[in-house]
């Protein structure tokens, strides 16, 4: 089994896991009861996707690993998620801006994976794309309602978007793993979804009366290769505490 396929599965699995972990932090603290339930639903969907992808990655590793050993016994340098998903929740506008940019990308990425030559990956994508289409509908709708809501909500959302925007670039930067997966017909070239993503984001922002941040500038990257922000190691310290402090225990 190729190392590239393992790496590739980790990237998608870790994106879903880490974003789900962030959303789980909101549970019980949302701005309205309905939001609390909806955001938890998104967290649950992402967690479900993460479990499928990490289980498949564990199978690919073939070393007795499973979803839990991958989630709980890797250090941050072994995580392959993009920097975007590990960014702290901030206020609710920050959380929603991060979610919208991710959903818009994830929905396109999963559509590409539907035609993967790897049947197991295509099957996961088929399940996940239905969920993410709903997430995107919801996060797009909230961009519009909050952007075109009050002056305050527009300002908060614009600030949130400007802040998180630089982290979106990494989604579209390919490397050797992407190239190998694309050549094998398993994956896709990340750059190839950029224009469609941008067109969609632009359309939603226009309706939401939000400004698209200027191109260029600071473009942090490295998450896909295991070089993260300071935030990830703290997130993992919290997430992994029981598994790490009770080695070998079953729960």
């Amino acid at each position, binding site marked *: 089994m190729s190392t590239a396929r393992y790496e590739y599965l980790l990237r998608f699995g870790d994106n879903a896991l880490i974003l789900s972990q962030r959303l*789980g932090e909101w*549970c019980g603290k949302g701005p309205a009861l309905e939001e609390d339930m909806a955001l938890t639903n998104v967290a649950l969907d992402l967690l479900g996707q993460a479990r499928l992808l990490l289980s498949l990655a564990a199978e690919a590793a073939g070393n007795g690993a499973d979803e839990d050993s991958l989630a*709980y016994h890797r250090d941050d340098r072994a995580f392959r998620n993009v920097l975007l998903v590990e960014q702290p929740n901030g206020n609710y*506008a920050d959380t929603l801006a991060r979610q919208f940019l991710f959903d818009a990308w994830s929905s396109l990425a999963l559509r590409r994976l539907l035609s993967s030559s790897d049947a197991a990956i295509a099957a996961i994508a088929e399940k996940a794309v239905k969920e993410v289409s709903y997430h995107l509908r919801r996060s797009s709708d909230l961009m519009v309602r*909050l952007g075109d*809501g009050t002056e305050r909500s527009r300002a908060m959302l614009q600030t949130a978007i400007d802040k998180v925007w630089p982290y979106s670039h990494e989604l579209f930067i390919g490397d050797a793993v992407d190239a190998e997966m694309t050549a094998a017909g398993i994956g896709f070239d990340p750059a190839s979804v950029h224009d469609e993503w941008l067109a969609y984001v632009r359309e939603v922002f226009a309706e939401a009366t939000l400004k698209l941040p200027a191109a260029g500038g600071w473009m942090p990257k490295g998450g896909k290769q295991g070089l993260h922000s300071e935030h990830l190691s703290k997130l993992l310290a919290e997430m992994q505490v029981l598994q790490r402090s009770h080695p070998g225990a*079953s729960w």
Partner: protein
Amino acid sequence: MYAQMVDTGSPSATSLDEREARFQSRIDDGIRVEPQDWMPDRYRKTLIRQISQHAHSEIVGQLPEGNWITRAPSLKRKAILLAKVQDEAGHGLYLYSAAETLGITRDQMVDDLHTGKAKYSSIFNYPTLTWADVGAIGWLVDGSAIMNQIPLCRCSYGPYARAMIRVCKEEAFHMRQGYDIMLALCAGTPEQKAMAQDALNRWWWPSLMMFGPPDGDSVHSAQSQAWKIKLFTNDELRQKMVDQTVPQAEHLGLVVPDPAVKWNAERGHYDYGDIDWEEFYNVVKGNGPCNRERLEVRNKAWTDGEWFRDALVAHADKQAQRLTAQAA
């Protein structure tokens, strides 16, 4: 989740006028009261208090368990806990809706919670210190809740009774997931088993307190029972809980932290020791370990979310104006 601690005002059987007598006789005949029906003010007020306390308990109850979502020890446990805490939010939502049929708004109820005017189940003022507490809450706290709520599926107020049917189904699952966590811990390492015992030690008494004061001190029970919004007394329900739970603890290999617990063949029930009611009233008054923190978290979530709620309303207004302008 909810404690039987509801003040019914000042009932008096002799003051029933004719309408009240008719109302009572419909209840006696097992006819459900629906929102459009006439009902005595005291019935309405008591139910608003009871249902909203129940709703608040679901909402505040998200916090102690939510405390462990980010640290759940496996992805499967994390998924189950997320779904479980989400269910509790859903229960809050049905219950607020049921209470709204009695003529109060959700905003008013939420405000009463945040200002400390309304109560919620005092059990949620205890901290969840270890993962085993998540198991103990499912097993004991949701177990007590079911005991209390299954009869409410047959209570006299239609919207409440119907909400309870779905709530009870979900609570039964919650209890099983809690017991399943305890089973795994008790079959685990000595440290895990000790964690389970410690959780039982800390949650046992507060769970028994959830049913409210002893019958002798529960002065308003009679009216609520006549109205069929309370179908068993606090002590009856508490006894059921003890009878159900003691064998479950034995099956886990855990010891109930009450040396007085003993099967009484004559009564056909387990005897149990005296409950520290001073602790109960103290927590109800706001002096439990987490009362302040729980309310602070709720208040902060509400205040921090104000811009969000305002924006949705503003957007809806704009949309409505646009539609009107289009139509004109």
